[in-house]
């Protein structure tokens, strides 16, 4: 009886919060059939928006993966003064509204900002262009790899690494042959979350991009633009594409993951 109640509550909540809105999106997108939806997501502006989102993700995710693993190694294996601070800062993007992040970047890189004036005098454009959008996306998706890898590193301990060292492995060999294989699933899961977060980023990018249609409009910005222009089918169809991208990422992860109990 109690089991049933628990199941009802958990599944009911999921349906209300998650499945309901998601199915509305699919339903509205294909309300007038597949044709209009397809033409709505294949316009040059839509295609450009998807491409831009993918490009930003393709840079932000690898950068955050490398940084995330290094950061986790630093936190767990090489304690230093200020470690606690770093640990707390990594979580900041989860707590801070992306819009605030966007404004911070705006202040830094704007025409009168700290770095902005120097950069623009050297002909480098950050705001309203790719660099700021990558920075914003990287910022909001920093925590995931770190948070996934840290507990696994703690759990595996240093025994295996020390053993590898006494067997003649250099630091890089220890990492490549012992540490990385032990944390790879944590890294993979972190990458999936980072990717998902990057694909869906809206707030910070919306502030720093300038939202120039066909130029600095990412997929999420495109959805909101279509919606504001009363192009309901266009907005929902683009949403479906975004949702599908996220689903593909999550499924890939589940397929790659080793079956439980192999090791």
């Amino acid at each position, binding site marked *: 009886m109690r089991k049933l109640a628990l199941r009802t509550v958990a599944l009911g909540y999921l349906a209300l919060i998650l499945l309901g809105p998601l199915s509305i999106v699919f339903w509205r997108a294909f309300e007038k059939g597949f044709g209009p939806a397809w033409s709505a997501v294949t316009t040059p502006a839509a295609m450009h928006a998807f491409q831009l989102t993918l490009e930003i993700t393709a840079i932000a995710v690898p950068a955050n993966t490398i940084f995330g693993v290094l950061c986790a190694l630093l936190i767990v294996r090489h304690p230093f003064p200020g470690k606690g601070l770093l640990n707390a800062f990594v979580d900041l993007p989860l707590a801070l509204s992306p819009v605030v992040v966007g404004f911070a970047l705006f202040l830094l890189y704007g025409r009168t900002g700290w770095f902005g004036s120097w950069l623009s005098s050297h002909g480098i454009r950050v705001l309203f262009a790719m660099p700021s959008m990558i920075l914003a996306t990287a910022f909001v998706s920093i925590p995931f790899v770190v948070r996934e890898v840290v507990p696994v590193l703690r759990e595996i301990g240093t025994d295996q690494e*020390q053993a590898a060292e006494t067997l003649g*492995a250099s630091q890089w060999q220890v990492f490549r042959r012992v540490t990385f294989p032990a944390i790879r699933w944590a890294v993979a899961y972190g990458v999936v979350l980072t990717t998902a977060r990057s694909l869906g980023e809206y707030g910070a990018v919306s502030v720093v991009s300038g939202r120039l249609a066909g130029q600095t409009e990412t997929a999420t910005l495109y959805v909101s633009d279509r919606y504001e222009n009363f192009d309901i089918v266009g907005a929902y169809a683009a949403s479906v594409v975004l949702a599908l991208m996220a689903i593909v990422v999550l499924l890939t992860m589940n397929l790659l993951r080793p079956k439980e109990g192999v090791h």
Partner: protein
Amino acid sequence: MIAGLERPDAGRVTISGEDATGLAPRKRGVGFVFQHYAAFKHMTVRGNIAFGLKIRKRPRAEVRARVDELLALVQLQPFADRYPSQLSGGQRQRMALARALAVEPKVLLLDEPFGALDTRVRGELREWLHRLHDEVRVTTVFVTHDQEEAMALADQIAVLHEGRIEQVGSPRELYDQPKTPFVMSFVGAAAQLGDRWVRQHDLDLRLEPAAGAFEARVERIARLGFEARIELQLADSGTVWAQMTCAELDRLELERGATVWVMADRARVFAGD
């Protein structure tokens, strides 16, 4: 410290006459077997043993041959393609030993290698290690809290107490000529009588007073099969127990509450104690 995983505050580490104090662990040629195996979980037994050889970029055929040889040595051939999680504790530890031996270390370090195993497996592995050592002949440092293990395996024992070496010597030297009360009571039980230390089986119980004997009362008698333990309350103060065979006990016809005189002719007195 010998492996280079810890830095000494003072002093030097020399391996085969060469100063290794500043050398990185990977350059020392020290094989390390950890208490908790430190098996590479994502590699098979074969992969674990081959690790050091692969790091040294040895030809594949040579690696294979050497690993086969080691698998035979530690009797793990049937398990070559298993993962560490599919092995028992004893098997994992033998794998760890083969892994350490693969790179032909100058020194083999065994850090309480049997500490995580149950008593029976410990005993078997100890016997096996003894025979293995006769075959492989590599200088081995074996850390243990088990005196019996140390006495049974070692040529030389260093007894450490509170971070200091109390005495270094052969098992026999440590037992027959301990330099401190700690060593004496560590490598075999010992009792204190006044300022004298004596092994329990060297205590001589008599029913008549004698010169230099301690008066005592029998508190309890425990027959353990071949031998017996007699707990004694000394007339001065303190308690000791004496060890003797049950046959001797029967001959003395001791009973609880009886008064006896304890002779300790083979006792030792330690300076500065």
